[in-house]
């Protein structure tokens, strides 16, 4: 298909509009991972936790100036807005224009740094060279010390990638689609091997760089904030188990800092792409991020959360809750004695509250009131924990029972223990109705055994 090339004299405003619009489907907009003060010559520093400077109308954070160098592309990936067969306005920045924009925005505290990606102009080498030029100018001529996230172009010369890596904070190569088969179908110009090669190169170089820095403290740093990648969710028929396994092996074998998931947005009318009448699969993306956190911070493995028989996430419960419900044999857990790793597996207890519990129980044993102060979400946790050998209320460790109660998300109390249900007026006509076990236990409150303890606790509440 023919398209009219727009001349390079396009005003910067138009270019910014076109090239930020084209870059918006890239997910990673984090500025974390490096801590660096001003070098004394120029402008800029990095804040370890990253800083969000604004939030766009879709609720995503704006931390970096996220743009493409160019949206001209020789490839024709089916899912991409900038594929060569699409008739869209095309534009290309010059390195100096990007530098001026970054400096102007950074001085006004609009952004934390630059996120630079690009379509493939002429050849991967040529494009990578342009990205390198831009970064080089920004770092040396403009003395910019802020955060830079740059894409490594698959297929580019390794020397160029290495040189660029010494100027950037984070590098990423997009995996695009979770499996090689999906890639063949939707992005015929890219192969799995071509994508993984620069990823491996960056990983090896980072490893070498760590040793250089150990030897010479002032050695230049190579990609100090690590590398990341992203994949599109829902464009190809992979299930959650496959996606999560891919992410797990990327963390383990490629030492990635983050894997991002991007719910597929249908921007092209193409017969190879699925129709999504309900909009992008946002809940699925959310569940994948939750599982991703479980892999990185909670010591879970992909095989525990999902399996070949249950390859997709439960849409009602988060992955951890879902896991706990299927593994009730581990519960209840005694909060005052369980190991840190065990505590992390309880729904309602996160990394922070688990750390606080471990710290606080050195000074004395904990009760449910203390857990609440510590920040444990008791409405979820109460079915899975005991304090000093007691559960918070008399609960049953049964999948159906817990599922039913957890679906009452807004209530801490199991419904049958709420006031109006406990003291039901006796009717003359329900004589013959047999009482359920729960009702019997409620009616015997205050007599003896665990029920007596329960009534004491009620009064405290």
């Amino acid at each position, binding site marked *: 298909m023919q398209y009219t090339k727009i001349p390079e004299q396009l005003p910067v*405003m138009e270019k910014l509009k076109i090239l930020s619009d084209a870059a918006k489907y890239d997910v990673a907009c984090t500025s974390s991972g490096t801590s660096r003060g*001003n070098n004394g010559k*120029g402008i*800029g520093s990095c804040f370890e*936790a990253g800083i969000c400077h604004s*939030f766009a*109308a879709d609720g995503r954070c704006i931390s970096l100036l*996220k743009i493409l160098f160019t949206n001209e592309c020789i490839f024709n990936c089916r899912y991409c807005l900038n594929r060569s067969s699409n008739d869209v306005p095309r534009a290309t920045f010059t390195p100096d224009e990007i530098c001026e924009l970054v400096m102007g925005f950074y*001085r006004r*505290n609009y952004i934390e740094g630059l996120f630079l990606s690009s379509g493939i102009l002429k050849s991967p080498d040529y494009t990578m060279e342009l990205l390198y030029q831009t970064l080089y100018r920004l770092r040396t001529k403009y003395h910019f010390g802020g955060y830079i996230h740059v894409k490594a172009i698959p297929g580019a010369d390794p020397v160029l990638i290495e040189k660029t890596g010494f100027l950037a904070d984070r590098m990423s190569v997009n995996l695009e689609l979770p499996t090689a088969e999906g890639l063949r179908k939707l992005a015929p110009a890219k192969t799995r091997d071509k994508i993984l090669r620069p990823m491996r190169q960056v990983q090896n170089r980072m490893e070498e760089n760590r040793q250089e820095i150990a030897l010479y403290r002032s050695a230049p740093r190579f990609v100090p904030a690590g590398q990341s990648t992203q994949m599109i969710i829902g464009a190809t028929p992979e299930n959650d188990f496959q996606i999560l396994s891919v992410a797990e092996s990327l963390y383990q074998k490629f030492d990635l800092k983050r894997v991002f998931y991007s719910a597929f947005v249908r921007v092209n009318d193409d017969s190879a792409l699925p129709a999504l009448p309900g909009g992008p699969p946002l809940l699925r993306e959310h569940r994948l991020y939750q599982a991703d956190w479980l892999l990185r911070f909670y010591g879970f493995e992909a095989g525990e959360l999902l399996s070949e028989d249950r390859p997709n996430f439960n849409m009602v419960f988060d992955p951890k809750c879902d896991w706990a419900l299927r593994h009730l044999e581990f519960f209840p857990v005694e909060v005052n004695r369980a190991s840190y790793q065990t505590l992390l597996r309880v729904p309602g207890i996160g990394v922070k509250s688990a750390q606080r519990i471990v710290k606080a129980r050195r000074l004395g044993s904990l009760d449910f009131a203390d857990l609440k102060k510590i920040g444990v979400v008791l409405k979820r946790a109460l079915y899975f924990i005991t304090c000093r050998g007691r559960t918070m209320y008399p609960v049953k460790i049964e999948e159906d029972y817990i599922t039913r109660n957890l679906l009452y998300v807004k209530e801490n109390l199991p419904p049958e223990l709420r006031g109006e249900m406990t003291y039901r007026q006796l009717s003359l006509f329900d004589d013959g109705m047999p009482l359920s076990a729960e009702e019997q236990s409620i009616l015997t409150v205050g007599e003896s055994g665990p029920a007596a303890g329960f009534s004491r606790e009620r009064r405290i509440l």
Partner: protein
Amino acid sequence: MTTVFLCEDSLDGILTGVYEAWGSRLGHENVRLKTDEADTMELFCQYQTVRTDMEKAEKVLRTVRRRMGEKAQEAVCYAAACPDERKADAIYRLIVLGMSMEDGRQAVNCLQNPSVLLVEKLRYKAWHEAERMLGFLRFQELSGGVLYAYMEPPYAVLPLIAPHFADRLLQENWIIHDGRRKQIAVHKRGSGWFLADAGLLNPVRIEERSESEAEFQALWKVFCRSIAIEERRNPTCQKNLLPLRFRPCMTEFQV
């Protein structure tokens, strides 16, 4: 009878109050600290107004640092920035506790003590607010090339965020203006920063913008609009992460 020490609503004011209350020798349980806002007076109380004295405040802060450690110092500084009327007394109780302990560094960990818990909670709130302000502050370039930022934060975060910008924008002349407290932080190129009264500002000069300012503001607005994905539109999420109270001072939300 209880004596209430009314101190100015600032870190120095509260620390001077701590100094005076301690030095009054009335006994810790007979004194209370309050920041002076127009408030209903209590019966059966004596009121004493504290005049802020930088030297006394400095002494107290130095002692806190030496006896109770850096963490306690940070907690006191951040808690004093909160708009909470209980903060002055809680800070006083924390310092009393710390001085009475053998190892004053443990005082901030005694979370079962309600005053310590309050100071810790306030510290977290102020820290969180300051961290958000690091991102949401917007500078504008004045005609002389000076960067000028205006904010109206409910928390007194100006002294907490100024060091960050002093490092980041080392080679710039900048002013951050806290309109609510009528305070400014001024930074001169290549050197340190200091706090001053907003009365020093020339109201005409801060209205003059440089030539490129309007262009960059327009570019930024275009960028913020085009970076959002229409199919994922979610104003509730945006409002949770960026509450409306910040928006009047942010370029991209100004018409």
